[in-house]
């Protein structure tokens, strides 16, 4: 029941009574919706007081201001110079286009909003009503009838009497459901060796000829192109080798100082020793992080670390790029390489272990697992 348990619920009124006022008819509607008025009075006791007029003026002013700014928005949208013309100074009008649009539209909407809200808060009657809440399910009659209706329906269809039909329908529907989702299978592709073979695979991409190192602009890379303490990003010199078609191929080619190269040679994993993976003081690491695949390209040439900017994995350049900090668990694979007779870097083979993020059946070599 309503808040005022002690007061009696209002009596229904006779709507055919022509003497009823509009308000009486209205409150009869409230009564039928189980609503009772606790408090209802005009915001201003006497209509037309100074305070009320003032409030009306404020609200009206807000609406007019809104219209003013909306007009300004339309005018600015059409006539304000807007075309981006490259490097511009703040004095140029076009760099203000977006701010002007935002200011005009924002202010217009805000003024209108405050107008409506002020109207609602300051001019509508002060009211407090209480409505009964009919919570907790339907009446027992309704439930009983619904139950009987459903039972009757089940009986009509004969779900209980015709078990064979039910089973047959289920057996038929199951494949039908499969048929509905089967076309999604068009998306399924065999990943094949996409995660293990990169653009450095000579058999696949270069008719078995060794693949050269290429810079992004297509220039082949020679040893004299990387100075001590320097690094460049190189790609396989094949068609589209530097594009996203070969996402696991980018390699960071680093020219170490003598002392650092010495440490690295000492630390080199046997699998890299076996293939003589370094060339002089040069080393080539996969640029793709073994954590989730961002380019690990923050090379710190003094602390000899490679940092991945996505999740802060850090790799030790002078220790096979083994992870030393952060969430990565595997070293950055080294690309074994040498120099061909024309003096260009060439890859000796593909990476010995797959570069990039790990997956469940990622093949690995025993050296790796020891670390």
């Amino acid at each position: 029941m309503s808040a005022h348990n002690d007061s009696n619920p209002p009596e229904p009124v006779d709507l055919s009574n022509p003497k009823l006022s509009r308000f009486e008819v209205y409150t009869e509607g409230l009564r039928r919706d189980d609503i009772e008025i606790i408090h209802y009075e005009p915001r201003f006791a006497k209509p037309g007081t100074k305070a009320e007029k003032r409030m009306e003026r404020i609200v009206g002013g807000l609406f007019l201001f809104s219209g003013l700014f909306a007009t300004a928005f339309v005018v600015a949208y059409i006539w304000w110079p807007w075309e981006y013309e490259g490097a511009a100074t703040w004095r140029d009008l076009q760099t203000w286009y977006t701010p002007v649009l935002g200011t005009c539209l924002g202010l217009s909407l805000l003024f209108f909003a405050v107008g409506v809200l002020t109207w609602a808060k300051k001019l509508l009657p002060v009211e407090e009503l209480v409505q009964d809440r009919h919570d907790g399910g339907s009446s027992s009659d309704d439930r009983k009838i619904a139950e009987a209706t459903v039972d009757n329906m089940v009986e009509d269809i004969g779900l209980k009497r015709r078990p064979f039909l039910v089973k047959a329908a289920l057996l038929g529907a199951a494949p039908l459901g499969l048929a509905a989702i089967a076309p999604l299978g068009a998306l399924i592709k065999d990943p094949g060796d996409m995660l293990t073979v990169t653009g450095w695979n000579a058999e696949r991409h270069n008719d078995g000829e060794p693949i050269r190192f290429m810079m992004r602009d297509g220039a082949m890379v020679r040893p004299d192109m990387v100075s001590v303490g320097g690094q460049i990003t190189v790609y396989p010199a094949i068609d589209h080798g530097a594009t996203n078609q070969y996402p696991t191929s980018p390699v960071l080619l680093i020219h170490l100082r003598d002392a650092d190269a010495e440490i690295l040679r000492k630390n080199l994993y046997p699998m890299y020793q076996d293939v003589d993976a370094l060339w002089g003081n040069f080393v080539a690491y996969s640029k793709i992080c073994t954590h989730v695949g961002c380019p690990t390209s923050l090379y710190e040439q003094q602390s000899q670390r490679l940092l991945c900017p996505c999740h802060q994995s850090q790799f030790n350049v002078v220790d096979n790029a083994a992870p030393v900090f952060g969430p990565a668990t595997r070293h950055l694979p080294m690309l074994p390489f040498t120099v061909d007779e024309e003096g260009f870097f060439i890859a000796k083979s593909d990476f010995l272990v797959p570069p990039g993020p790990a997956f469940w059946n990622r093949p690995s070599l025993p050296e790796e697992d020891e670390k």
Partner: protein
Amino acid sequence: MKRRKGTSDSLLTKAGGELDDRFKLAGPARVLFNKVFPDHWSFLLGEIALFSFILLLLSGTFLALFFEPSMVEVTYHGAYVPLQGVEMSQAYASALDLSFEVRGGLFMRQMHHWSTLLFMASILIHMLRIFFTGAFRAPRETNWMIGILLFWLGFFEGFFGYSLPDDGLSGTGLRIMEGMTVSIPFIGPWASAALFGGQFPGTSVISMLYIIHVFVFPLLLLALITVHIGLVFAQKHTQWPGPGRTEHNVVGFRMFPNYVMKQIGFMLFIWGVLGAMAGLFQINPIWLFGPYEVSVVSSASQPDFYVMYLDGLIRLFPAWELRIPPYFTLPPVFWPGIVGMGLSVVLPLLYPALERRFTKDRGHHNLLQRPRDNAGRTSLGVMVVVFWIIGVISGGNDVFAEKFDISLNAMTWAGRIGLVVLPIIAYYVTYRICLGLQQHDREVLAHGLETGILMRDPNGRFYEVHQPLAEPDEHGHTELEYNGWVVPKKMNRIGALPPADKGFFKSIEEPSEDGRTERRDEIESGKH
């Protein structure tokens, strides 16, 4: 019924009659117009999400007129000088064009992005309100679950939208998603190949995300939002306990005109804030990021804030990898990325059921709880919030490290330790605070309010005069039960010190209104 004179009235009546003849509206319309809504600021938080969603639909439609979801390689010849002649995907080129060569396009793009952030932020705040006040309890568990689903739909909808322009940040985000996908045992590589049409990034993912972003998910969101609001309407809104408010009624004001006017006003206000932000605050300047290339990345690469906690967890998770050489690997990203995300979906979905099970409280609740009155739940909520915030901060720990000159490694370790320790501390502290507040409420009810007036008794002892909230017994105690209402804690809350004057700049004469007595009535009616 007496008809009133006047052309406009009779016209309206006539039109109404015509409509009613056809649709039989008079009854349902009356029910709608008269419906009573409770009034409290915290009941308006969900509306922020609703209205920013509407703005998302509007601005998104504008963007879709100009955006081309294609990964075909083109050479850019648009207005932005530093990218002229650069090879890029059609998607990125069209996103640049709509920023620089469509009138107002940049404004619309920024509005779309700010609306997304507000949509997600308000869902979170709304969710916290629902949680801490126990509004999710029976009979509203379904609506809580729909709300959680809405959050996660919004999460992916936003992430996909962030990916569409195919700029450097988008691609980095997709790359991380690929790394997470591929880490799933057994199906990972297959799932990744299905998602990207072969090897990442492939040439199809943008168009796939596009149809999901502009059709499938908006449709689902729209449907679920409709059901969400429909259920609020049908089940009637919860209300705070207070004088005259019971489990079986709703105290408030009518839907029309009061509630609807406030809603319209609030909607325009939200749009106004978003419009102003879209014009004044630059967001996601894609032209600085360049096209996505697998070998290119930027320092401080982050997802939008609602994804950031997940990214933070991935950053903090130690380098633990399960290996059964040579056949099986479980990469570390699997735990925070896949398991962590899965738990963040499932646990909130199940929470109402779990609480029901542990508290054995099976009743219906239409009155809200003050957070202090359910210390266990409140502390648990604060614990989760602290966990989440540490995740978010760690998601941007490189920006923190750089701007506040802290070691990045130290930030990571602080995050790792903080993630384990701080939520526990937060739980304990919150629990104690809740109990303290409960205690104080009861004290005030028993002894009255502190008045700040010091007295000295004949023995020379000082004591403070208390204002009892009801007629005290012979020991000076009042027998007031605590019933979940707000307990007044200051004298002016019970009408002792009403504001001396009204008006902002100059005083306004209030004719005949006596706020003091009215407020006193409220308090006194509370004694029953």
